[in-house]
């Protein structure tokens, strides 16, 4: 069983080929390159390096978000088009969960985090039990301040993970003090092999056509429109 995993949901890029629980090849980078330019050539190179054809793929795993709207859409579009035309299963995994998987088996709470601008973050809360990862909170979008206040009630060490967690290190330390722990740099990037490992544990999507990103936020125009509708009904 050969998996292709793709994560373009945030600034880092990762793609991997995994065969029966073994990494054949993996590419992860944090250079500021456009996913739309690099993702497909990278997949082509990985397959060539592993001496495989597209038709050799048995399943596709993709990071479904949250993250950069455009980045998430690029990965999801590539993944669903490949899965549909190759007629193979597709599995979507939370981008935050992929990051959290780097911290297994940390004995505490794991908080993967992506910056969402204007003081906001995408974050989730996970816990590892043995080799498995368990979700404590639904992935969410909100202010960093609110997140830190919620986390302070947990009374356990919380491991912050992700390149963007580093960016907010000072604010997190100020708010949580010693409760906050930071993942070492090799764990800060999402890795497509982790994505595939998580994908193997769940069921594929029932209809590839219906598969869409998990944005965790509605567009501003739609939010405004909904608000207008509500005030009209009042």
């Amino acid at each position: 069983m050969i998996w292709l995993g793709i994560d373009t949901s945030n600034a880092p890029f990762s793609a991997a080929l995994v065969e029966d629980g073994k990494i054949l090849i993996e590419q992860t980078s944090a250079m500021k390159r456009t996913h739309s330019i690099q993702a497909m050539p990278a997949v082509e190179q990985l397959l060539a390096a592993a001496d495989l054809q597209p038709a050799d793929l048995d399943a596709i795993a993709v990071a479904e978000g949250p993250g950069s709207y455009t980045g998430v859409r690029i990965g999801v579009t590539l993944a669903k088009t490949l899965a549909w035309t190759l007629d193979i299963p597709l599995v979507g995994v939370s981008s935050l969960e992929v990051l959290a998987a780097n911290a297994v088996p940390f004995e505490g709470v794991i908080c993967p985090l992506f910056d969402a601008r204007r003081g906001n973050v995408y974050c989730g809360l996970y816990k590892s039990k043995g080799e498995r990862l368990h979700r404590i909170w639904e992935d969410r979008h909100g202010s960093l301040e609110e997140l830190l206040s919620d986390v302070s009630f947990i009374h356990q060490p919380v491991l912050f993970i992700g390149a963007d967690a580093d960016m907010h290190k000072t604010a997190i330390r100020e708010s949580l003090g010693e409760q906050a722990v930071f993942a070492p740099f090799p764990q800060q990037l999402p890795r497509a092999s982790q994505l595939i490992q998580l994908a193997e544990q769940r069921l594929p999507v029932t209809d590839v056509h219906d598969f869409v990103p998990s944005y965790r936020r509605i567009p501003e125009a739609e939010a405004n429109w909904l608000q207008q509708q509500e005030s009209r009904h009042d």
Partner: protein
Amino acid sequence: MKTDIYVLGIETSCDETAASVVKNGTEIISNVVASQIESQKRFGGVVPEIASRHHVEEITVVIEQALTESGLKPADLDAVAVTEGPGLVGALLIGVNAAKAFAFANGLPLIGVHHIAGHIYANQLVQPMEFPLLALIVSGGHTEMVIMRGHGSFELIGETRDDAAGEAYDKVARVLGLPYPGGPHVDKLALASEIAVEFPRAWLEPDSYDFSFSGLKSAVINYKHNLEQRGEQLDPGAVAAGFQQSVTEVITTKAVRAAQAYSVKQVIAAGGVAANKGLRASLENAFNELQIPFAVPPVHLCTDNAAMIAAAGTQMYLSGVRSDLAMNGRPGMQLTSWNE
């Protein structure tokens, strides 16, 4: 021996998710368009983020339907053509990445097509092109005149300096309180009206083939304000007719001058506004008189579709043009010749 060429076209530059299979660049085998008009209506225009989300929802459905209706398998295709630009970047990226994945998975050549080249080549689906020709592109995003001396040769001789004609139509529709998309409503009102308000014509410099519609748009807005201040009733039909007369007279006059200056054998119109009855009639009259063949594709090939992308893509394929998997969506892409 296989001699026919089948190209899959994909178009997502604005708010239509479209896919089509075209044979030999001239014959439509299937042509699927999923429109977002119903969704975008709520906002009175195209919201880019919403457009991108819809494209992701529709893209594989639309490609599959185009293939199913064509009765062909990916292995029967010769190439995949996709709109590379210009357009909304987030929207373009969905078509581009789907095309890349599809081409790679099926071992097919990939061809990035300029959206305007697509609009022009929509005419090939109706009748052969005769060179030199004048192409007049009038849409929500474009008002351009292009001279073609052969396949893949484009010389831009004039373009709008501010709003596209279609944009002006939409703005005037809003001023008149017409529903989105407003262009067809303005056209309808204008044709039904027996009187017309006199609005200015923007001729620019005497030798210029460029256009300008922002002054006309302001004139319509000012006219409405003046009436309101005087407490008088506005006649939407008369305003629509006056506006449309100004637009069609300027476009027709400039197109006629260009057609004569370049001694063209054919004039073709393209783009959503080319489907406009008033403009079409005015151009038809003018070129009939001059006995220069004039063609406009049917409405469903004037508005955004993927058959036009496949048609242009086929001609590029025949010229040996290929893109690679590093192709990106190019929102500001220029129309350049591919045969030089």
